[in-house]
């Protein structure tokens, strides 16, 4: 299982901060696609992703036990 951490407005969209999801061997992009369908999460295409607190791109392959954080980029100031 992959541990998913949802930051900022994503936490509100899903109604919780963390969840576990099947994703061993998936890429980050595939996980995003799966979450988009299962939870109707909008705007996952443009969020930053951290895998185990390390910045990761869409091609990164996930393994059981990984923690994936989705972090919306912020532009205001």
């Amino acid at each position, binding site marked *: 299982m992959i541990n998913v*951490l949802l*930051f*900022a*407005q994503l*936490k*509100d969209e899903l109604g919780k*901060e963390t969840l576990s999801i099947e994703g061993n061997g998936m890429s980050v992009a595939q996980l995003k696609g799966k979450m988009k369908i299962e939870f109707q999460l*909008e*705007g996952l295409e*443009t969020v*930053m992703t*951290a895998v185990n*607190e*390390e*910045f*990761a791109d869409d091609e990164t392959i996930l393994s059981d036990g990984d923690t994936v*954080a989705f*972090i*919306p*980029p*912020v*532009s*205001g*100031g």
Partner: protein
Amino acid sequence: MNERYSRQTLFSPIGEGGQVKIKQKHVLLLGAGALGSANAEALTRAGVGKLTIVDRDYVETSNLQRQQLYTEQDVEEKLPKAEAAKRHLHAINHEVEVKAVIMDATAQTLEPLLGHVDLIMDATDNFETRMIINDLSQKLQIPWIYGACVGSVGMTMTILPGQTPCLHCLLKTIPIQGMTCDTGGIISPAVIMVVAHQIAEALKILVEDWESVRPSLVTFDLWRNQYQTVRLTKVKKKDCLSCGDQRTYPFLTLENATKTAVLCGRDTVQVRPPKPLKLQLEKLAKDLNGSGYLVKVNPFLLSCEKNGERMVVFQDGRALVHGTKDMVHAKAMYQSILG
């Protein structure tokens, strides 16, 4: 020992030697809004030698809730923010040389200001300008500190040319349709939390304590009690067009800038993004509705109105700002909505 800075020189990573270095440095601060005014105040109190503040805006009532330095009097006088900031900063610390530059920051207007600048502080409100800063930082070898906030959320990252990844390594494309302070609101704790990180990094850079510079991106949400650092060790890209081997500094070219043009005889400015976008107009309409705009939307365009100003946004990102001939104002309004 200068009594004014005694508590800062007591802090051993700065010390008397660090204070001398801070005094010798020149910081360029881009933006004098929420992040900008608070950064300006902290840098001035800390005793930086010279501070150049660039901003295109003037002080309005809705700024006072979170923008330090400014008073009701500034609103009444409709003072440009850079100038209002300069006046208040002088009363706080007359030893700091503050230069106020009232202008729209583009690659072309910014570069001439960056001679002899030791550090660029980001206090802008959009990624387009940040990508320009990022390219100039790489071209001129000047460190910069990204900072951004909206709602109760913030994010910051320090970029050292030749050492850390750059913002372009992280963001392959400029994200569009992020929440902005005009659509998602903003509370002051998010502002000052970002500023706390930016100023800590600035002091490290000014006293040249390179080892202490934070190697990771920080993100937080103060209302939802979240804080996370993200390591960036694998992010730096050899083929990055801003910091890689074959760099072209793409954001310094005119073709990658948002264009504005006055439409003759129509009291309207057209704003055009560098590349056609594919906006989710329905989502944008929802955000704007929540923030006090009168919004109409159809599959092709969105029309929004507030305080007598009207903007029409097409799905490809092009917009018409009605009721003005001021291109800088039109671009500011566009970016305040689209981020």
